[in-house]
């Protein structure tokens, strides 16, 4: 009954977490198919998910540009004042031995999140419009998923909150417009990632690339 010759691998899904085999079936919209053994979500089709993911990724990208350009925090003490943008926070380590850390922070809070939004747009926007996926859509989505743990915009926001408390005794701090752009960015990213069901996106990408 489990002989390999009688099984057509294109009709099956292996759970990415526990390797259990499942027969592919049409999952109705707004229902969720889970692995029978470990409970991992295998398919969660949502109507208009592609369009929503695309719009949210575009919004996040615009917010990211605003967050980098505008002043983030303004600090004043004893008549002196200092403005810091996200770029300043990134460049804080840029001298001497700290330079690699500066680069790492730039990657974690700006470059990787921005690259991820772009990759998702490139992979999914054509499908949201009903077109064929772009030429390197598969590679783009693979990279978007791979860099996901390293895009740390939301952790940076908590870091800002902690930093504010630390300097509270030292100086007066005001939040700039970029802080609110960054906070909105975090919310948009969380909603967007909630809409992405990895196996469903992969299956759609494969089907549309072939036809």
């Amino acid at each position, binding site marked *: 009954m489990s002989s*390999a010759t009688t*099984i057509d*691998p294109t009709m*099956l*899904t*292996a*759970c*990415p*977490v*526990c*390797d*259990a*085999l*499942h*027969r*592919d*079936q049409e999952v109705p919209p707004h229902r969720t198919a889970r692995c*029978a*053994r*470990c*409970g991992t979500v*295998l398919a969660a089709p949502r109507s208009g998910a592609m369009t929503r993911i695309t719009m949210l990724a575009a919004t996040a990208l615009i917010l990211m540009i605003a967050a980098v350009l505008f002043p983030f*925090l303004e600090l004043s*003490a*004893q008549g*002196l004042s*200092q403005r*810091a943008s996200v770029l*300043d*926070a*990134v460049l*804080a*380590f840029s001298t001497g*031995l*700290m330079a*690699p*850390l500066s680069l790492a*922070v730039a990657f*974690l809070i700006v470059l990787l999140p921005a690259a991820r939004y772009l990759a998702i747009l490139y992979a999914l926007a054509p499908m949201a419009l009903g077109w064929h996926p772009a030429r390197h859509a*598969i590679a783009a*989505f*693979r990279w978007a998923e791979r860099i996901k*743990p*390293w895009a*740390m915009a939301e*952790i*940076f926001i*908590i*870091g*800002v909150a*902690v*930093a504010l408390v*630390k*300097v509270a005794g*030292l*100086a007066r701090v005001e939040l700039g417009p970029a802080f609110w752009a960054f906070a909105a960015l975090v919310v948009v990213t969380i909603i967007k990632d909630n809409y992405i069901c*990895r*196996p469903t996106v*992969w299956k759609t*990408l494969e089907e549309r690339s072939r036809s």
Partner: protein
Amino acid sequence: MENPGRTQPVLTARGAGFVGCRACGRVNPPDARTCVRCRSAIEPDDPASLQRVWAWLAAGLIAYVPANIYPMLRTTTLGHTSENTLIGGVVELLSHGAYGVGLIVFVASIVIPVAKFIAIAYLAVSVRRPAALGSHGRQVLFEVVEFIGRWSMIDVFVVAILSALVQLDFAAAINPGAAAVSFALSVAFTMLAAQSFDPRLIWNANERVQVT
């Protein structure tokens, strides 16, 4: 979706003579090197992959030592310089009465890294022998480790923000210390250790124990 192999034990892709892709779930021929659907590199669920987990974990532990010894922050106020270590920063926050934030920093920079070292080591060991925690329990543990590990980066970002913001010449200036680099490295290495761990080993080890 129903499982074609309803009988115990569960029919897996490997058990059926195929290899499943960890990125997209596509079932590939057993000799495949890259997935036919997403073109990710395919790695069989071999306990030999644990070597990578142990290597990254060791690197993370080694980097965590200087992170605790060297100063994280160098604060200059009115010509007087003071240095703060990882623990020192937490103590200072608590002494100022900022209990909530002090607790966040304590959890992010001490509790989570240490708990992660223990949890990853436990997962890697449990694959080889029968474990006290069942497969579901260990799966949850693995997901928690993957989800929460990134949050330890908070302290590095705090140092970056403070160093950028507090540059008021004579009045006050904050500069990063050497521990910021080693702590960032420690967090990155432990994240890589968690990512190198193959959760299928949890489930297949369970199968091996059940069979005997």
